[in-house]
Structure formats: C-alpha cells, structure tokens
C-alpha cells in the first residue's frame, strides 16, 4: 500500500489536530500520513480516545486540521472556505453514521435523494428515479414512501447507505455502521457495503470497534494515541 498514485482518493500528509490553544492546548492527532486508492475497503480501528472520530471528521471535511495537508481527489482542501468545503463534502463524500441519522420529516425515498436536492436546489424526476434505483439495490423499494421512523433500525441503516451513495461519491465514511444493529442486520448491512464496493469500486473507510468486522476488510489501519501504529493489508475473505 506504499504506492501513492496521483489518482489517490484520499491523501493525508502529516495531519495534526489539537484543541484549545496556548498552555491548555492538547494535540489529539500527531502527524497522520494516510492514502486511500480508488476501490479500497479499509477499516480504521483503535481504542476509545485514540482519535478515530477526530480523524474521520477531518477526512469528512466536517472539521479542519491544525496542520498538514488533506487532499480529496487531488484537491487541496486547505485552500477552501466553508462553502467550498461543504460543496466538496456534498459531492465527493458519503456518510453512514452509527445512529442512522435520517431526517424524520421525510420519506425513505426523499431522504436518499436529499444530497442531490441540496446540491441542485430544486427537486426533479431524475433524482427520485436514482433514489428508487438505490432503494431497490438495498432491498427497500417497497418502503420508499415510509417516513424514516416507520422503518426498523436495519432498514434505516440501509436507507442511510443508499443516501451515502446517491451522489456517486469518491469516498464513503462509515462510523460504526453496524454498531447499533442486531447480528443478523449487522451482517446484512456489512454485506451490502461490501457488494457496493465490489460492484462500483467505491472507496470505503469504516470505523469500527468490532475486530470480526475489521477482519472482513481488505486493509486494517490501527490508530493508538493519535498515531497510526499499524497499517496492514488483509487477505480478502
């Protein structure tokens, strides 16, 4: 994984993040270097407090690093203002959160179409067509008119995955995507992520506590105390 192709989806160079300033400043991340190529399916593991969430927020452009370079699809994000970061995030990055995070006032179909609606400003038939196609892929075409809270936890997570894919993102960030699900639903959700990765070569970075889940990924990145202490390729299952 040492090769740094110029078509890297994600390129982190010496990323540092600290909170506070002056004497009370505390550094959470101490110079992270990381590259993700197109089509990779990687797990980010590490104990609580190791900086996983902080790193994920930086990669997801929800937060800015204190120092270092962060490139998404070869675009340097340090030069962008808030609106620029937001646009890039909307177009290139899909999020799957632990707690599903659908918007309850909207139906499954509308939730999936939401990133397109936000980007284009007005609804149109094409975005709902795409939304229905993705719901079909995650096996929820019959539930498309249900409101978010009328769906089970596993179903909500599948809707969230469809939503994360709707913009054809370069990178999908999943934060404990199966953390809140029973074993059966968790397995289904994982298989779905894996299938999307295989079929569409979408890059995935999955944060997890679950060693069995990590073991099913192609690459395992281990973060301890704000440093990457291990980064190993893992034979595909």
């Amino acid at each position, binding site marked *: 994984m040492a090769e740094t192709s110029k078509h890297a989806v994600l390129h982190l160079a010496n990323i540092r993040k600290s909170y506070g300033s002056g004497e009370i400043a505390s550094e959470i991340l101490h110079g992270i270097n990381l590259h993700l190529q197109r089509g990779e399916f990687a797990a980010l593991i590490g104990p609580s407090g190791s900086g996983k969430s902080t790193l994920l*927020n930086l990669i*997801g452009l*929800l*937060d800015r690093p204190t120092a270092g370079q962060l490139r998404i699809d070869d675009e340097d994000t340090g030069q962008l203002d*808030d*609106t620029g970061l*937001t*646009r890039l*995030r*909307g*177009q290139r990055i899909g*999020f799957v*959160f632990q*707690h599903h*995070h*659908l*918007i*309850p*006032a*909207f139906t499954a179909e*509308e939730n999936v179409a*939401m*990133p397109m*609606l*936000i*980007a284009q*400003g*007005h*609804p*149109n*038939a094409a975005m709902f067509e795409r939304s229905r196609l993705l719901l079909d892929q995650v096996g929820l075409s019959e539930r498309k008119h249900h409101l978010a809270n009328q769906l089970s936890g596993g179903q909500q997570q599948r809707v969230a995955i469809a*939503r994360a894919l709707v*913009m054809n993102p370069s990178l999908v960030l999943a934060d404990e995507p199966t953390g809140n699900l029973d074993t059966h639903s968790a397995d289904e959700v994982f298989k779905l992520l894996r299938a999307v990765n295989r079929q569409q070569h979408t890059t995935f970075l999955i944060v997890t506590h679950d060693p069995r889940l990590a073991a099913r990924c192609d690459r395992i990145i281990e973060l301890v105390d704000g440093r990457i202490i291990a980064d190993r390729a893992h034979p595909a299952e």
Partner: protein
Amino acid sequence: MKSWQPFEWIAAVRFLREGRMQSLLIVIGVGVGVAVIVFMSALLSGLQANLIKRTLSSQAHISLLPPEEIARPQQATEHTALHLQKQAQRLRTIDQWQTLRTRLESWPEIAAVSPVASGPAFAVRGDANKAVTLVGIEPDRYNRVITLAERLTAGQLRVGAGEAVIGIELAKDLGAEVGDKLRLTTADGRSDTLIVTGLFDLGNKGVNARNVYIGLRTAQSLLDLVGGVSSIDLALHDLDLAENIARRINSETGLTADSWIKTNAQFVTALTSQRVSSNVIRFFIALSVAFGIASVLVVSVIQRSKEIGILRAMGATQTQMRRIFLLQGGIVGFFGSLLGSLLAWSFLMLWQLLARNADGSPMFVIGVEPALVAIAATGASLVGILAALLPARRAAKLDPVVAIRG
C-alpha cells in the same frame, strides 16, 4: 415535492409540519397579535373618520376671507415715537370673487366652491329676540361644502327671496316652526321678514342656535354688501391637504385662507396624539410577536441540531441552513397574519353588533379593508423573517461535528 419549490422551502415547510403543536401555537400567537393590531387600526381609523366627519359637518374645509386691514403709519422715521392702534375689521367683500370662484373651481384638488355673504343680525319673533349669524348662500353650491340638505329635520332647503332655513335650537328659542314668519334686523337698521322653510340640525348646538341660512342676494342687501361676498367656502377631495392648499391660495391671492386643520388645531393635535399612541402600542405588540416567533425558532434550532448537522454533512451550506429558518419565520408570520385578519374581522362584526347608538343604528361604520389585510400579511411575514434572523444564524453557525454527535 413540486419541482418549482427550492430545497430550503421544502425543508422549512416539512419542519413546520412535523413540529405540529409548536407551529400551531406560534401561528395562533402571531394571529392574536395581528388581530389586535388590525382591529385597533380599523377601529381607530373608523373612529377618527367619524370624528372628523362630525366636526366638519358644520365647517368648510377651507374658508377664504378678505385680507386683514392693517393700519399703516403715514410717516415713520427713526426719530418719531410711534404707537399703532389696531384697526377694527369692517365687513368687507372679497375683490373679484366671481373670477376667483371660477379659477378655484378649475383646481383638481378642490371639490366645491361656495361664496357666502355672512354677518351679524337679530332674529325677532314676538317677544323673543336672538343674536344670529346671517349666512347668505347659493344652496346648490353650499350643499356641496356642507351637506345641509341631509341635515334638515323639517321642511326643505329653500332660500329664495323671503325664505330662511334655521337651526332647531333657534327654532326652539323663538318658538318657530316651518311656515312661521321671522323678522331679521341688522345693526344698522336694515330689516326683512322671512318665512321659515326648513329646520336643520348640524350636530353642533352653537351652530343650531346661531346660523340663519338665507339667499345670497337677501343677505347681500341686509348686510349692505351688494354684489359682494364676505367669504368663500371650499370643500376638498383630500382633507389632509387642507393646510397646504390653504397656504397655496394665500400666496396666490393674498386672501386669508383658514383650513379646518388650523381652525381646529387642538382637535387635530388630539387626533395626532391618538394615532401616535396607537402606533406605539402596535409597535410593542409587533415586538412581542417577533420575540414569540424568535423563541420558538431558537428552541426548534436546538431540537433539530442533529438534523441540521446531517444536512450540513450532506452538503447543505450555511446559507441554505440560514434560509430554511428565515423561511420558517416568514411562513409563521404569514399564516399568523391570515388567522389574525380573520379574527379581527370577527371582532369588528361583533363590535358593529354591540356598539350601537340609542336609536339602534351602528355607532359608526368600520370594516377591514383588503389593503389592511395585505399590509398585515406583508408586515407579519417581514417581522417573522426578522425574528428568525438570530435563530437562523445559530442554525447556520452550528458546528456539524458537535451537532451530529448530538
């Protein structure tokens, strides 16, 4: 979702619909505020229009009088001690009044022009003897300035030779009725006997006791003003312009022009301060409505912080988030104003039903004008948007990382 609706609008409407109870309560709150404002405005303008109408029932909008006669010293040098005695004002005629009448009638602001020959006299009938004001008029013209014909309680408005119309108070004092004779005598001894053809009630006791309407020619000969008039009364289309037009006439003709605004300065001041105090009340109601909207939206921003975070993560910009909450404020204001206008209309109907004169006729007629509803709707929507500024800013500035973590 309709394709013409922008994302921000769709989200604003969905958020309001989802927070059903909260939205309903604040719309009702805005509605009550708007209802009070609309009701107060309608009541006040109805009341004031009625007061002005009553005040002007026996007054012209503008009265033109000959310029004051001023005593000028024949010699005045720095070294002479000078004491000028003010001159007594004679009853005089307005120069060239026919020409002036024609000229004023061509002004678009002026609705009617009525020349009047007016002066003091005594009305005598049997043993009764009353000081009166003779008012010589051309009835058709005069009626367009002061609606005398409508105010008759008996007889008709007929002031030909030997005919007079008197007020109900004077009629009572003299014990006269329609058809009775009346002797009018002026200070210099001219006198005439006239038949009472009508009795009027202009709603003002002084005027009812004093004014005796007679033909212009009769008045001219009784007052020794042959061919002349002592004043010209004007009616305007727009009452509020009276002072401006009076000044313009004064500067163009040199005549003294008294507008009703100047003649009733205290009354006008009272009306103005009434309007000012109602504006103050309206302002504070609008302010409390704004705070109501703002507090509901602030709570809504906190309740929805997770959703705001998700929308931000999915690419919604700060501007988009701000607009969603500004729109919610505007929508709440708009629907509140519709509800408020409906409430105000019901209040007014009830008021018309309850507030009646002794004879059962409505005290005065008021209604909700469509323009007032339109102003209320626009105003309330704007107030809603203004009230949403702070909550919308909070929503936009929310850190998505913190918001999502919840």
